[in-house]
């Protein structure tokens, strides 16, 4: 996995630079998301991994599938990946692209798990507090998880803030051991 990220990093950086130049990060984000969605499909991945399929054949197939969904620059990118035998990296590139994008626009994707759904007002308050704490804009994804019993569990990247009753019980269990 880490090796994939190393290979994908220059591609993602290049795509992001181009997207910034042409002011089309949103469009590229959609392009990459679409491409990785296509490649996750089992029928497609069989074809991609099949050494009998020529590069020309694969290029034609991919361009056909993506027709209408991606623009000419996107098509060029696909051709480049196929030429370099790096089609399998698309999802890693998409992931890294999102990281660069979030970094550049100064927001973080935060996953908030709660035992009970927030009211609209509470959520606004909570987001404001989080933004102050992380000193970044926050894009929130809410998940309701009854097993937390109460409280909230916040995940921002690999940072975790555990303020749930479940987490406290686990802490207590460790302390009593």
């Amino acid at each position, binding site marked *: *996995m*880490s090796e994939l*990220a*190393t290979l994908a990093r220059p591609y993602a950086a290049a795509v992001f630079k181009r997207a910034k130049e042409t002011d089309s990060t949103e469009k590229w984000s959609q392009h990459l998301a679409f491409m990785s969605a296509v490649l996750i499909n089992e029928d497609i991945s069989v074809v991609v991994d099949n050494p009998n399929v020529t590069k020309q054949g694969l290029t034609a197939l991919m361009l056909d599938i993506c027709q209408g969904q991606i623009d000419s620059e996107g098509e060029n990118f696909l051709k480049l990946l196929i030429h370099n035998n790096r089609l399998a990296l698309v999802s890693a590139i998409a992931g890294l692209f999102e990281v660069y994008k979030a970094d550049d626009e100064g927001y973080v994707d935060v996953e908030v798990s709660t035992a009970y759904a927030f009211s609209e007002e509470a959520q606004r308050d909570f987001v404001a507090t989080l933004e102050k704490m992380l000193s970044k804009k926050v894009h929130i994804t809410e998940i309701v998880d009854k097993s937390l019993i109460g*409280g909230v569990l916040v*995940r921002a*990247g*690999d*940072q*975790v*803030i*555990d*303020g749930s009753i479940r*987490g*406290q019980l686990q*802490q*207590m269990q460790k*302390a*009593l*051991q």
Partner: protein
Amino acid sequence: MQLNPSEISDLIKKKIENFDLSAEAHTEGTVVSVTDGIVRVHGLSQAMQGEMLEFPGNTFGMALNLERDSVGAVVLGSYQHISEGDTVKCTGKILEVPVGEALLGRVVDALGNPIDGKGAIDTNETSPIEKIAPGVIARQSVDQPVQLGLKSIDAMIPVGRGQRELIIGDRQTGKTAIAVDAIINQKGTGIKCIYVAIGQKRSSIANVVRKLEEHGAMAHTIIVAASASESAALQFIAPYTGCSMGEFFRDRGEDALIIYDDLTKQAWAYRQVSLLLRRPPGREAYPGDVFYLHSRLLERASRINADEVEKLTGGKVKGKTGSLTALPIIETQGGDVSAFVPTNVISITDGQIFLESNLFNSGIRPAVNAGLSVSRVGGAAQTKIIKKLGGGTRLDLAQYRELAAFAQFASDLDESTRKQIERGQRVTELMKQNQYSPMSVAQMAVSLFAANEGFLDGVEVNKVLDFEAALQLYMKSEHAELMDNINATGDFSNEISSGIRAAIETFIKTHSW
């Protein structure tokens, strides 16, 4: 102590009352791969080198490789239950082990957990396993002896408090025997001992523990055991664990002695971990930092001055120096001291006790090669009387070695050469000593005096040890006061010299052996 159920629930209630509930913030990662105890973790961007990582199932690991997208960690203990996708938490702490007086008399594993079935260890203090050695300003030169209780070593290769003296030799040359005798001889001296067993058979470790118990030496000893069946990671950290436990005593102005048995196996374990972490192999497939592995460990054995002790204890202990003496053990293959790890450790330590298998097999035990063994700083620390009397021994043996080849032509040799050979044979014989029978300073002084002054020259070579035993018995029963005096002061005056001389002369006249 028997507790009734209501008391137990009261205790738990109190613990819960005092429990500090707060939102816990930490960094999390995901296990990507598990291979032979090495775990690759994605995420954990905040991890520190050497940080303790928490795996599911109350298992801990140590971060060793910090890479761009992942962290390479070793699992400390069993790793069978860890699988791809498990979450790993940073703890924000460098690996710590319990330290304190309560560990004395106990057998613990490389993480400080008791494995002797005597219950929990009653200590709240912990200490990180990796610490920076005391600086130049904090140190004091070595000038007090550690008596190992072995004539040949205390007379010729003295060890001082805070010294690092390597014990090196092939397998089956009595390396561990010297270490165990050294521990036994510290009974009643106030020197705390730590015996770190690395990569040994469990049966050997059990034997050492039993022997120490039999000789009443467990009360001042901690055993840190990372046996051959434990993971390479534990074998790799065990010496650092033991060192932290020893530093606790050093930093409180006490004296401690630590034995690493043996560092060859630790280097093997570290090589395994490093290769699995895909670090590039170097000479003999060891990683590039195998010198640092041992140098940073042995550098922590030191003597620190009274000011430093006062600073470390917050003014509680004043006017006392602290020391940690290290006796690392290295096993050579076929007497090859020029292999990678032996040369490294020889260059790090302040001298070595060199044991040889042909000496061992010819009955000279301890099988110390007096020519190749040296102590670079111990001379300054040696007890006065032993220093005075032991110097002659070293010279006698050196001269004997030069001439030993001619020993079989004894009848054709001139008078002085023959005398030197005969003296050498007797001194070699006198240097033999049984296991588990350490000698006091006074006992050694009497034996060395007898050799130096030529009292042994009239004794047949094969009777030397009998002569010595009878003489010691006589001195103990008839001249206890003189012996106590020597043990107490360690000085060598004319009065003591003439006292010993008179005693030996009377013994020779009146006793048989």
